[in-house]
């Protein structure tokens, strides 16, 4: 459904392109042997290369190249066997070289695509413009001293993949879905952990607006370094509204870099970046062109895991799940694996209902994660088996599940301990029914006079007198026979 903003002069649509900086998972940095781990003491993971000491030469880390190619393949993108590193020149306190080693006109990965999973179960393909490798900058901390900024170079030189989308996104919601899907793919591939809070995935949003029906692209503004999906959406919404207000009051939009203030929920101009777009790129004379073999690419491709789109298609075909359920389950590899363990050899739809329903609810309620779940996949599977073999009714199973979450015990153990076994013995159920009938002759008469809705009340009474253990289907059937004849 198209996202339209109503202005005073007419309807507007948003044009959004996203640039995501994804920190590559590697032990050492892109061009040095210093460690990349998050949270170390300041400047302890810095080599002379990262600190830009004179005479130091960068040497590329082969795993970073491999990770970039792997990500490119995951985005169904063209891999460029020859790519070139360039210097992007700008001045900032946490950039000791005075330039960032990046890639400009010859990136390692070219055009690809990413498929958005929309909430209604449909999909939409968004173009990927390119992916290139580059160095991260250091970190500036501004709140430790009244007149000084503190600089930590631990992050300086860590490998980043800059993944640039085409201006194909049309709403804040689509931007959110794009980021969610990209993060999911990166995590499947093991090329970036996707942690936006720690800054290992950061997003810049390019936003412009145009009247609905127009095809030209208007001047865009770039909103820098937004660190959560929700903030990206809020920033886009605010920025689009600002553009429309400017246009409708007769003004023009200036291309500029803006900052999102999450406290005030607005964007504002970054004056320091006024001349920043003049980066004076040129090929880095310290680095030869990066040339890789097709066999290297083929080897990586052969080792790719099943990715979310393929897994989703398989879950729909193999297990008969709908697009929405399949999409939710495959978003994280670990939840997909959890579901498959539960579903193996069992009714997949029942397994899906339990995982998506009670299990996910239990994760929320207990605050636990699926890596350390309150109920294991094996135990949840065993619970479903107990329903299938008639030991538990669906209703009892929910009680047992709650006890499993509480105690961590296996379902069979709990059934024995608490005596929760379903009663399927006809004699016992009959006795319970007879007792209820005998105690309520007036209500029996009402049912016989046509008030059949009262049967439900009888079922409730029988279940109550058996502490919920009677098989509900048998109770229903036997009650009807006895009361109605």
């Amino acid at each position, binding site marked *: 459904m198209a996202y339209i903003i109503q202005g005073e002069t007419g309807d507007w649509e948003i044009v959004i392109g996203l640039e995501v900086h994804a920190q590559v998972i590697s032990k050492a940095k892109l061009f*040095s042997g210093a460690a990349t781990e998050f949270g170390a003491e*300041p400047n302890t993971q810095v*080599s002379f290369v990262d600190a830009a000491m004179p005479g130091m030469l960068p040497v590329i*880390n*082969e795993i970073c190249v491999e990770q970039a190619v792997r990500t490119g393949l995951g985005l169904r993108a063209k891999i460029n066997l020859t790519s070139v590193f360039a210097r992007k020149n700008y001045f*900032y306190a946490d950039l000791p070289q005075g330039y960032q080693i990046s890639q400009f006109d010859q990136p390692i990965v070219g055009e690809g695509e990413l498929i958005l999973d929309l909430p209604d179960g449909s999909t939409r393909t968004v173009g990927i413009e390119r992916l290139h490798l580059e160095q991260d900058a250091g970190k500036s901390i501004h709140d430790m001293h009244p007149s*000084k900024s503190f*600089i930590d170079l631990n992050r300086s030189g860590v490998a980043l993949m800059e993944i640039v989308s085409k201006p194909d996104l049309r709403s804040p919601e689509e931007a959110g879905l794009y980021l969610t899907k990209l993060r999911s793919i990166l995590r499947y591939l093991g090329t970036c952990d996707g942690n936006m809070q720690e800054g290992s995935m950061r997003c810049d949003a390019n936003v412009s607006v145009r009247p609905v029906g127009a095809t030209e692209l208007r001047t865009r503004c770039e909103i820098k370094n937004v660190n959560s999906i929700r903030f990206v959406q809020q920033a886009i919404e605010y920025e689009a509204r600002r553009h429309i207000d400017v246009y409708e009051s007769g003004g023009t939009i200036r291309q500029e870099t803006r900052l999102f203030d999450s406290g005030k929920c607005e964007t504002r101009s970054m004056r320091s970046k006024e001349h920043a777009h003049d980066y004076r790129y040129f090929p880095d004379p310290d680095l*030869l062109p990066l040339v890789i073999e097709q066999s290297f690419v083929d080897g990586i491709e052969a080792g790719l895991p099943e990715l979310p789109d393929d897994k989703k298609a398989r879950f729909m075909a193999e297990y008969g799940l709908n697009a929405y359920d399949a999409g939710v389950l495959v978003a994280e590899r670990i939840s997909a694996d959890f579901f498959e363990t539960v579903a193996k050899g069992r009714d997949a739809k029942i397994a899906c209902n339990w995982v998506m329903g009670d299990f996910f609810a239990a994760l929320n309620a207990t605050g636990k994660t699926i890596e350390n779940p309150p109920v294991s996949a094996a135990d949840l599977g065993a619970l479903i088996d107990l329903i299938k073999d008639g030991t538990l009714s669906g209703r009892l199973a929910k009680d047992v599940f709650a006890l499993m979450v509480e105690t961590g015990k296996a379902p069979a153990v709990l059934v024995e301990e608490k005596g929760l076994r379903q009663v399927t013995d006809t004699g016992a159920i009959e006795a319970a029914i007879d007792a209820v009938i005998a105690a309520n002759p007036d209500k029996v008469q009402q049912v016989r006079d046509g008030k059949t809705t009262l049967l439900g009340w009888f079922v409730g009474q029988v279940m109550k007198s058996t502490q919920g253990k009677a098989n509900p289907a048998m109770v229903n059937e036997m009650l009807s026979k006895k009361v109605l004849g």
Partner: protein
Amino acid sequence: MSLDKDAVRAIANLARIEVRDEELDHLAGELSNILHFVEQLSEVNTDGVLPMSSVAAMTLPMRKDAVTDGGIPDLVLANAPEAEDGFFTVPKVVE
């Protein structure tokens, strides 16, 4: 291609080099001369010729992904004009 005073002023500003106004004309002339000298190369037809990146037939050497460096904060900070608590410190740069 020639550079005017404004272009030289902008380049100096981007490079964080302080240039006095009275030096701009002279520098614009010098830099323009350098550009003119290099521009002679464009007289050669290079259609279909790939840029040469090295005189030796070499490709980019690669390194294994192993932590072999770092852990030398004192050395890294040794030449810093100012440092505090293991950080470089600079005049406050914040929006």
